[in-house]
C-alpha cells in the first residue's frame, strides 16, 4: 500500500496524459488547435499522450508490485520516470499552448510596438522552458517525486546537441562567398578569444567564460545550448549567457539601423554589418528590414553573413572543447587534450554534421534542412489561375514601374510556369541554378518594392509571384524530423536545467558576465563597423 502511495504522482501524470490524448483524438480541441496553429501536430499530440501515458502507467504498476532495487532499470527508468513525465507534460504544454499563445499575443501587439515581441525577445520553447523551470524551483520547489527525473536533463540536452549537427552542412559554408567566410570567421574567432581573455582578466570561472564566448561569438542561443555541456557550464551560467545575448541583441536591433543611416552605409554594407555584429537571427532580420525594407539586398546580405556565422558553430565547438580540456588539466599532452578530455558526445555532433555535409539527410547544400531546387517538376509550377493572372498582366502591360530585369523575370515565369534557369542550360546545373537564383532575386525585389509601396501590384499577381518563390523552396523530411527530435530534447533538457537554477545561484554569478558580454559585443560591433565600411563596397555575393 505504501508503495502505491509513492506512485500516486506517476499514476496521476500518466492518467492526465491519456485523458488529454483521448480528448485530442475526439476532435473536441480541433477549433482551439486551429486557432493556435497547432492543428498539424494533432496526431503527434494524440500519439505522445497515449505512448507516454501508457509507459507511465506500466512503470507505476511495476513499481507497485515489486520492491525498489538498484538495478539499471530502477536507476535509469523506474526512479526517474515520474520526473521525466512531469517535464514532458510541461514541455507539451509549452510547445502546444504557451508558445503559440505568446506568438498570438505578440502578433496582436505588432501594430502598437512595430515588431513581433516573441521574435525580438526570442520567446520560443528554449526561453519559455528555462523560465518555467526557474519559476517552479523558486516558487513551489521541485516536487520530491520529480527529483530523479530532473537529473536526466543534461543527458537529454546532450542528445539534442548531437541532433543539432544534422541541421548544418559544410557544403553550404563552401557555397558562401569566400569574402563573407573570411570576414565573419575572423570576427567569430576574434570574439571567442576576446571573451576568453576577458574571463581571465575578470577572474571568471572558465565554465562561464566558455559558454559566454560561444554565445557572443557565434549565434546566440543555440550556440550557448550546444557549448554549455562541452565546457560543463552550470545551468545558471547558461541562463545568464542567454539573457546577456538577448538583451545586447535588442539594443543592437535599434541602434544598428540608426548608426547605419548616420554613417551613410549602402544596403550591402549594412547587411554585412548587421549579419556580423548582431547575434540572434530574428534580430538580424529585424535590423535589416528596419534599415531598408525596399532593397532586398540588405536582408539577403545580412542573412548570408548570419548563416556564415551560424555555420562556424561546429568549428567553435571543437575549439572550445580543446580549450576546456587543456584548461581543466595541467601540462597535458596533445593526446590527453584531444582524446582523453574531449567530450565524447561532441563526436556524435560532428558525425551528424559530416553525414549532413555528405548529403545523407538532404541535398548537401541545405541550411537547416531547407534547400532550393529549380529543377522542372509539376509540383513546383504555379497554378493555372496564377499563370493566367501573370500572363494577363504581361500581355496587358499592367506591370508598371518594374525594372527591365524584373520584368524579364516575370516574363520567364510566364513562359516556364515555374521559377527556373533557361531551359537550354538545364544540362549545366551550375549555370541553370545561377540563372534561377538571379530570377528569384528579381522576383523577391518586386515583392519587397510592393511591400514598401514603391510600386503597385495587383493582388493576384503578387500572390502568384509569392507562390512561385515558395514552390522552389524545399524542405528535407529527414532533417525536419531530426530537428523535431532536437526540439523535444532541448525543451526537455532546458526545463530540467531551469529547475536547477535557484535565486541564490543567479545572485552568486553576479554582474560580470553582463559586463564581459557588453564589452565583447561592443568591440565586435565597432570593429566590424569599420572593417565593413573599409572593405565591403557593393558586391559581396558570389
Amino acid at each position, binding site marked *: 500500500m505504501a508503495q502505491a502511495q509513492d506512485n500516486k504522482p506517476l499514476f496521476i501524470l500518466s492518467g492526465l496524459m491519456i485523458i488529454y490524448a483521448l480528448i485530442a483524438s475526439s476532435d473536441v480541441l480541433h477549433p482551439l488547435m486551429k486557432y493556435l496553429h497547432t492543428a498539424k501536430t494533432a496526431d503527434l499530440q494524440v500519439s505522445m499522450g497515449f505512448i507516454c501515458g501508457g509507459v507511465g502507467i506500466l512503470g507505476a504498476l511495476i513499481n507497485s508490485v515489486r520492491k525498489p532495487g538498484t538495478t539499471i532499470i530502477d536507476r*535509469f527508468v523506474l526512479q526517474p520516470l515520474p520526473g521525466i513525465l512531469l517535464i514532458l507534460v510541461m514541455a507539451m504544454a509549452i510547445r502546444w499552448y504557451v508558445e503559440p499563445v505568446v506568438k498570438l499575443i505578440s502578433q496582436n501587439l505588432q501594430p502598437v510596438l512595430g515588431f513581433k515581441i516573441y521574435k525580438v525577445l526570442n520567446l520560443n520553447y528554449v526561453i519559455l522552458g528555462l523560465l518555467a523551470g526557474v519559476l517552479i524551483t523558486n516558487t513551489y520547489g521541485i516536487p520530491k517525486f520529480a527529483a530523479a527525473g530532473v537529473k536526466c536533463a*543534461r*543527458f537529454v540536452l546532450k542528445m539534442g546537441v548531437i541532433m543539432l549537427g544534422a541541421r548544418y552542412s559544410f557544403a553550404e559554408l563552401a557555397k558562401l562567398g569566400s569574402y563573407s567566410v573570411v570576414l565573419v570567421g575572423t570576427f567569430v574567432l576574434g570574439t571567442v578569444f576576446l571573451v576568453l581573455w576577458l574571463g581571465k582578466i575578470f577572474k571568471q570561472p572558465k565554465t562561464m567564460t566558455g559558454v559566454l564566448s560561444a554565445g557572443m561569438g557565434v549565434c546566440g542561443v543555440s550556440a550557448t545550448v550546444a557549448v554549455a555541456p562541452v565546457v*560543463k557550464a552550470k545551468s545558471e551560467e547558461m541562463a545568464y549567457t542567454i539573457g546577456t545575448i538577448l538583451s545586447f541583441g535588442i539594443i543592437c536591433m535599434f541602434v544598428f539601423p540608426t548608426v547605419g543611416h548616420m554613417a551613410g552605409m549602402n544596403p550591402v554594407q549594412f547587411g554585412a554589418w548587421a549579419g556580423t555584429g548582431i547575434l540572434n537571427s530574428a534580430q538580424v532580420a529585424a535590423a535589416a528590414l528596419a534599415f531598408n525594407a525596399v532593397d532586398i539586398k540588405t536582408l539577403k546580405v545580412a542573412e548570408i553573413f548570419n548563416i556564415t556565422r551560424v555555420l562556424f558553430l561546429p568549428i567553435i565547438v571543437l575549439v572550445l572543447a580543446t580549450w576546456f580540456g587543456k584548461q581543466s588539466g595541467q601540462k597535458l599532452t596533445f593526446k590527453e587534450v584531444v582524446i582523453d578530455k574531449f567530450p565524447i*558526445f561532441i563526436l*556524435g555532433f560532428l558525425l551528424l554534421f559530416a553525414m549532413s555535409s555528405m548529403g545523407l539527410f538532404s541535398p548537401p547544400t541545405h541550411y537547416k534542412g531547407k534547400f532550393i531546387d529549380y529543377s522542372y517538376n509539376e509540383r513546383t509550377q504555379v497554378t493555372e489561375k496564377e499563370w493566367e493572372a501573370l500572363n494577363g498582366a504581361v500581355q496587358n502591360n499592367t506591370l508598371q514601374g518594374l525594372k527591365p530585369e524584373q520584368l524579364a523575370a516575370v516574363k520567364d515565369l510566364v513562359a516556364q510556369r515555374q521559377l527556373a534557369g533557361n531551359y537550354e542550360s538545364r544540362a549545366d546545373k551550375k549555370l541553370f541554378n545561377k540563372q534561377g537564383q538571379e530570377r528569384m532575386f528579381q522576383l523577391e525585389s518586386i515583392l519587397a518594392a510592393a511591400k514598401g509601396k514603391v510600386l503597385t501590384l495587383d493582388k493576384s499577381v503578387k500572390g502568384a509571384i509569392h507562390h512561385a518563390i515558395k514552390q522552389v523552396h524545399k524542405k528535407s523530411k*529527414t532533417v525536419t*524530423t531530426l530537428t523535431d*527530435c532536437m526540439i523535444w530534447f532541448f525543451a526537455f533538457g532546458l526545463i530540467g536545467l531551469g529547475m536547477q537554477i535557484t535565486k541564490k545561484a543567479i545572485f552568486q554569478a553576479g554582474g560580470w558576465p553582463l559586463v564581459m558580454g557588453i564589452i565583447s559585443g561592443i568591440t565586435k560591433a565597432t570593429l566590424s563597423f569599420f572593417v565593413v565600411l573599409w572593405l565591403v563596397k557593393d558586391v559581396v555575393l558570389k
Partner: protein
Amino acid sequence: MSKDKITINTGDAGKGESEIAKEANTEELEERALSVFSSERNEDITALVLSLITTFIVLIFTKWM
C-alpha cells in the same frame, strides 16, 4: 576533523554539512550529483548511442522506406 578533509555546506538535502576529502574535485562531485549517470563518460556514450539509434530510425521512416 581529519587533516585531509574539509567541511562543505550541502544544504537541506544533505542535512547541513558534510566532510569530503580535501583534494576531492568538488566541481565533478557537484556535476555528478545533478546527473543520473555515475560518470560523464557513461552519460556521453549513452547519449551518443541513443542519438544514433534515433537518427537511424528517422532515416528508415523518412528516406529509406
